[in-house]
């Protein structure tokens, strides 16, 4: 079974803190994604990566950066957390060129910025 894990289920941070959200997948997938989930807005793509050290902006990259130093790990970074970044963050991965359908999701991190 494909497994996508996220470092925390719940996280509380203060405004201005630097926040790291970690995602690890164990299936050697090339593509990894970070989404943000908000009520009434669904999931929105923040950043994605198609290879080590390669990244592209999604629909809402402002206030975020990412890092992919190893194939299995994709980190989302909030350089200076703000209250409007309080949200659920979901990581996902999928293989390049494999079954063209599946995107495997992690369990999500609910981040609260106070």
């Amino acid at each position, binding site marked *: 079974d494909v497994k996508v894990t996220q470092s925390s289920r719940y996280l509380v941070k203060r405004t201005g803190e630097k926040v790291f959200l970690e995602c690890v997948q164990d299936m050697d997938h090339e593509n990894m994604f970070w989404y943000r989930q908000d009520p009434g807005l669904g*999931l929105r*793509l923040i950043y994605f990566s198609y290879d080590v050290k390669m990244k592209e902006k999604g629909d809402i990259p402002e206030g975020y950066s990412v890092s992919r130093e190893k194939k299995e790990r994709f980190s989302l970074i909030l350089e200076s957390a703000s209250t409007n970044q309080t949200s659920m963050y979901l990581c996902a991965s999928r293989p*390049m060129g494999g079954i*063209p*359908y599946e995107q495997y999701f992690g369990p999500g991190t609910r981040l609260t910025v106070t």
Partner: protein
Amino acid sequence: AQTVTQSQPEMSVQEAETVTLSCTYDTSESDYYLFWYKQPPSRQMILVIRQEAYKQQNATENRFSVNFQKAAKSFSLKISDSQLGDAAMYFCAYRSRENAGGTSYGKLTFGQGTILTVHP
């Protein structure tokens, strides 16, 4: 850019009854994939069903089926014989068909979600 719209924030159904969740999308592409994902209270996203746009036949997975109307850009999910375990948030999602260069990378565009409540 593609957009996906779910106009029903909440729906409810009696156990064993049938419910239909609506989804519309906007795209200029002719070939793409559509999905329904389920997110139960555990928050784990689960793929329920998928439809390739080039296939005219509606996809079916056990109690779940879709009504895909390509010209109308509509993609509804029908859940038959509803069970308590079907209670969840349901998301409709769109993905471009991956081109030869693979540059779409499988990005998904999601709708707003519909919360489904199942009453015993």
